[in-house]
């Protein structure tokens, strides 16, 4: 089949200046976002940041107060959820307790008009059960299924309709850590094999980083930054993003002339600004714990005398909390390999914390 290139290149969904107001609260504030065909996009942020509202606007549960929601190039502001080719995996799954597993999964197909034949529905349900590896569970009741199995049922119930967008609202929140990890891998491979665009809402940065093609970081109803996990990790726009994506040490200071460094309690910390900064402005020098090394002798580049405060063994890495007289306490992550050459440190040991001069990121609050 020949496809129209202008159609397939167009984003599958878009938010254009979409805002949502609940009384005095602006839950979503002027959101602008294009969701590409077949991508895995995550909304990441703390609770109340507007990520769920954004998802619910795409699903059709909340019409935007202003702005537009587009699906496949069409404005769908007033299209109710039951008319949108979009399906959702709900937080806590929202499975129908009075229906069997198979009836839950076939629910969407039974709503189609003209209604598919019973045999066709049964066939599609079997295939969906197979996709989520629940063959033979069709006649079971919902309450007979474990949390992880219920999640698969919710997933099957959504994908059987071959939606243009699959929305996932904190789908892993109720699962234990091990199961969550398995499910993340499974979701990712499912997304690739089905070719459906996935939009995930989560407050778990690890989940967003490991699964997404792009992450949309939100705060207070606004989008702070959109980018690939690597982009966000290497070039966070501000301190909020750097804090949310991975761990970071932040040293408060004022920006020097030129913007390429800042002075923090007498120390000049050189680095790379991720947005334009004005000399004298209050800012932060950000350093990832793994960028810092710990040695017994002062080394090249920046090298600060520190005292080891605590030590946490993490297997492949050891995490130290060290304290410098001027800059205060910060974290250092030492790999097993580095530790074997330098030897381990004990709380109370004197050491030198060092990093390559210019390795810091110079970040503003906003």
């Amino acid at each position, binding site marked *: 089949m020949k496809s129209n290139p202008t159609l397939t290149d167009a984003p599958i969904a878009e938010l254009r200046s979409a805002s949502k107001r609940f009384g005095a609260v602006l839950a979503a504030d002027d959101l602008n976002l294009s969701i590409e065909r077949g991508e895995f996009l995550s909304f990441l942020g703390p609770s109340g940041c507007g990520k769920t509202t954004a998802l619910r606007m795409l699903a059709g*549960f909340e019409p935007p107060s202003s702005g537009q929601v587009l699906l496949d190039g069409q404005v769908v502001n007033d299209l109710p*959820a*039951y008319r949108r080719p*979009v*399906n959702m995996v*709900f937080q806590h799954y929202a499975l*129908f307790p009075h229906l069997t597993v198979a009836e839950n999964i076939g*629910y969407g197909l039974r709503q189609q008009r003209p209604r598919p034949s019973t045999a066709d529905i049964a066939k599609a349900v079997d295939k969906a059960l197979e996709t989520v590896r629940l063959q033979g569970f069709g006649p079971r009741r919902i309450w007979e299924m474990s949390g992880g199995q219920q999640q698969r049922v919710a997933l099957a119930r959504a994908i059987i309709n071959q939606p243009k967008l699959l929305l996932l609202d904190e789908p892993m929140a109720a699962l234990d850590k091990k199961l969550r990890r398995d499910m993340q891998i499974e979701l990712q491979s499912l997304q690739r094999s089905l070719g459906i665009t996935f939009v995930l809402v989560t407050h778990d940065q690890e989940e967003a980083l490991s699964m997404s093609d792009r992450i949309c970081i939100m705060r207070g109803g606004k989008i702070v930054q959109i980018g690939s996990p690597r982009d966000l990790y290497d070039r966070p726009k501000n301190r909020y993003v750097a804090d949310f994506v991975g761990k970071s040490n932040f040293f408060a200071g004022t920006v020097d002339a030129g913007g390429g460094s800042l002075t923090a309690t007498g120390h000049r910390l050189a680095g790379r600004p991720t947005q334009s900064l004005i000399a004298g402005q209050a800012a932060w020098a950000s350093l990832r714990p793994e960028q810092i090394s710990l040695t017994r002798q002062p080394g090249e580049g920046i090298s600060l005398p520190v005292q080891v405060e605590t030590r946490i063994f993490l297997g492949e890495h050891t995490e130290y909390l060290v304290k410098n007289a001027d800059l205060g306490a910060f974290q250092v992550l030492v790999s097993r390999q580095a530790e074997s050459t330098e030897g381990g440190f004990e709380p109370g040991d004197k050491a030198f914390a060092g990093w390559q001069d210019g390795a810091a990121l110079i970040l503003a609050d906003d």
Partner: protein
Amino acid sequence: MLVLPLVVVFVFSFGERGPAGGYVPAFTFDNFLNLGTRWAAFKNTLVLAPVGTLACLLIAYPLAYFLAIRAGDRWKTLLLILVIVPFWTSILIRSYAWIFLLGGQGLPALLDSLGLGNPRLINTPFAVLVGIVYGYLPLMVFPIYVSLERLDKRLLEASSDLGCPPARTFLNVTLPLSMAGVATGCMLVFILLMGEFLIPAMLGGGKVFFVGNALVDLFLQSRNWAFGSAVAVALVLVMLVTVTAYMRATRRWAGGRDDVSLM
């Protein structure tokens, strides 16, 4: 302690009326053979109890639905109070109000002045039905309200998300998941209605009488305890049969689900 009065009634039902009323021990089936003379009371009860239950259900469901799903918090509190408040006064006093409302000076007079005819309402089965609905409505509203209130509203969103418009969502999700409340309410109202005597006595004016009225009459007026006991035993048997049939039916319908319980 619970079954002792029932045993007494059962034993009495085979006895005879004494010369001055009361009970004389005997063993005769005469009382049961005479049950036919109270057929009208049984007929009224067996018609008006199910019809009254149904009428309560038809009014209570939309009310409970509005309370649990549509109403805002302020409306909800106000309406719940309005449903509860009548319970604070005796049904006797409230029935007097209905005697006035349905009597010649009440609703019929109002209809007459509007040129809509002057129907006789008081002392008819209709008046008894109105009294029943009025008196028993809260008993039907509350179980249904509770089951609708407990209904996870996200299920309605899930249904919509899967392409089901609101009216069908009601039939597919809301109604089946509130059937536990409906079953409880119907059972409660029906059982209590089978023993009702106050409403038919006051609003039926001796023309529309229930088995309950026959019992009051037999025990307190004609003092025929033996025959009264036989009528009571017959009523208990009728209830046993209908309630068992009802429970069978709801259980089969529920298909062994654990979200449906009768009480």
